[in-house]
């Protein structure tokens, strides 16, 4: 007797859906593979590499000073900071003394760029949650920051302003005026942005208690920058491993306290960035007051041949620590270079914390990471 095959009981299976690389809220060409059960995401796997441009290999074939434009295109929202990280790595390798005025100018542009970068971060985070107006209000402020940086460097996004041993151009009186005018009105604008978005109840409910990253986990995944500080870890390179003129400046390091939910949730990450902008303003006011006279660029040989050595130099950028690992064999190009991008390390935790989230929460969490794909893929 033949037993007829039993019909299989009706059962569902997870739906695999590819979010990106053309998706409005993946912040570039990131692809996230979602295994979903209805609206619930069982697993989210970030897939990267769509913007890979062989930056590290190129670094081994161009002279040290000619690599500055390439660092612009890594973290394109904070080009000044990345430029500076590269310049300081080469200066450390070749033991070049940077004039004090150059250091002041560097802090001036880097902190302005930090404000610009954080403005984009919080604006796009609002956009991820469906709020349009904060985006344009933040971009209006960012435009005035970019005007100041353009006055100095001539570029609006890819500045290419840092040089080995200093900066390309001296600071102009007009840019200081513009900076002062900006700082005067920015605090009020930031406050009204807080009223519009940060403390909106719908926004808090969409951001707080979601994507919680405990401090130990954050350290274990090598997270840095605002993401690490939002998890309650008090670590800022500018204060704890000081470089440039930061020891002379007086500023606080905001740490996530879980004001609206648990420490290390999306709202904390957002709020740490907002507070960092207030701190950057404090730094900038001190820099404008204390700008010394002097050279803006050290005398560096036209073709730089640093001694054979290796160096690892890291700096606090808006997204975390950008580090350059350089090996020189005495030639005019590095023998080996390696970039540590903060967005890459920060993104690595997405798969771990996105279990059993709603799709909307995944978008919210990814938005709070503030990744720049140009730096993830390099």
């Amino acid at each position, binding site marked *: 007797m033949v037993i007829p095959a039993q019909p299989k009981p009706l059962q569902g299976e997870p739906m695999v859906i590819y979010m990106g690389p053309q998706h409005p809220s993946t912040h570039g060409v990131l692809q996230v593979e979602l295994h979903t059960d209805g609206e619930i995401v069982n697993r989210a796997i970030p897939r990267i590499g769509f913007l890979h441009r062989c930056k590290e290999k190129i670094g081994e074939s161009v002279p040290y000073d000619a690599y500055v434009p390439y660092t612009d295109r890594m973290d394109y929202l904070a080009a000044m900071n990345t430029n500076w990280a590269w310049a300081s790595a080469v200066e450390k390798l070749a033991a070049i003394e940077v004039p004090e005025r150059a250091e002041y100018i560097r802090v001036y542009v880097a902190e302005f760029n930090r404000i610009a970068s954080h403005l984009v971060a919080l604006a796009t985070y609002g956009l991820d949650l469906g709020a349009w107006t904060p985006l344009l209000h933040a971009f209006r402020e960012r435009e005035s920051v970019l005007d100041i940086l353009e006055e100095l460097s001539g570029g609006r996004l890819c500045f290419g302003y840092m040089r080995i041993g200093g900066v390309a151009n001296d600071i102009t009186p007009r840019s200081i005026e513009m900076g002062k005018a900006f700082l005067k009105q920015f605090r009020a604008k930031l406050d009204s942005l807080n009223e519009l978005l940060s403390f909106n109840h*719908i926004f808090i409910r969409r951001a707080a208690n979601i994507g919680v990253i405990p401090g130990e986990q954050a350290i274990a995944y090598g997270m840095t920058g605002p993401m690490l500080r939002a998890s309650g870890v008090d670590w800022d390179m500018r204060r704890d491993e000081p470089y440039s003129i930061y020891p002379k400046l007086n500023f606080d390091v905001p740490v996530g306290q879980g004001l609206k939910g648990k420490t290390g949730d999306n709202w904390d990450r957002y709020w740490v960035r907002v507070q960092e902008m207030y701190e950057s303003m404090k730094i900038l006011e001190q820099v404008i007051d204390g700008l010394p006279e002097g050279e803006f660029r050290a005398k560096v040989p036209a073709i730089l041949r640093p001694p054979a050595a290796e160096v690892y130099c890291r700096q606090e950028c808006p997204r975390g620590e950008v580090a350059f690992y350089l090996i020189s064999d005495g030639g005019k190009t590095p023998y080996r270079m390696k970039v540590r991008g903060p967005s890459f390390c920060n993104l690595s935790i997405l798969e771990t914390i996105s279990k059993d989230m709603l799709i909307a*929460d995944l978008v919210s969490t990814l938005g709070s990471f503030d990744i720049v794909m140009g730096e993830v893929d390099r």
Partner: protein
Amino acid sequence: MDFLMNAMQSLPASMQLSGPLAWTITALVAAGVTMGVVSLVALLAVYAERKVSADMQARVGPMHVGWHGILQTTADAIKLMLKEDLVPAMADKWLFITAPLLVFGGAFIGWAVLPLCKGWAPVDLNIGVVYLLATSSLVALGIIMAGWGSHNKWSLYGAMRTAAQFLSYEIPTALHLLPAILLAGSLNLTALANSQAGGMGNMANWAIWNPFCFLSFFCYFISGLAETNRVPFDLPESESELVAGFHVEYSGMRFAFFFLAEYAELFLVSAIASLVFLGGWNGPFGLESSFLYLAKVLVMMFVAIWLRWTLPRFRIDQLMGLCWKFLIPLGLINILGVGFWIYYFRT
């Protein structure tokens, strides 16, 4: 405006027709006029939305087509009509094609009972409110069809969200209209507005001054926004999560239908709110004018636009929570309260 309507009503008589033919002609003309008004309202609403949002965001908005870009939406409509008619290869063609028509139709047939000016509606139905609530469900059906028929996972999510959202928010929409209907004792929209005439300054009898109706007015407006897919309730099409939700695959004229339907529905919701709660054409100082009615509708639409450009989006469970934990219980309490109110103050 009133003159136009009177002329239209006397049209068959002036053409010396009677019987079914006259009835048909009147109906067709009324439908044509309503269609024209809907299109005009949608075009102007889109323009207003662009301009208002631009002013809120330190932009200027459309500027080049016509005076301050007033013809921009017309130009866009022409562009959308001229675009290639695309149906995805794997789509369920039948559903895909009929869905936009159903959505637009659902929004459009609601206008049949809507008084367009003082005391005149294309069809003066005695159960107008019930009819409106019934037809608005067609929109939900159309959106679910669009999401399913597109054969796209994102639009499927949009469709599923629509199903949950629309079915939930149908209930508070109806519940929060009931207190005012209880007060007026009629389901006819014209009668509802007329029942609020009189009183001090022609405003004292507005339903909104009743404390229960006052709450109901806001709750109805919130539910109405949820039914029209406006931010903060635009989950079915939330562009940052589902790309464009149920209309991911739509382009050209089919997309324009969804777009038109959204604004037609927004006008519908605003018009019902102003008729049922804000006295319709009854206004201050004893005024009674169609323009007053129109002004109220426009103010409500402005508030909807204002909200859209202020708020972030809800999450699906928060949306459901707002509906089932707050709006529906409050609606029931309001109905009970108005019942007692009528019992104690009217009798």
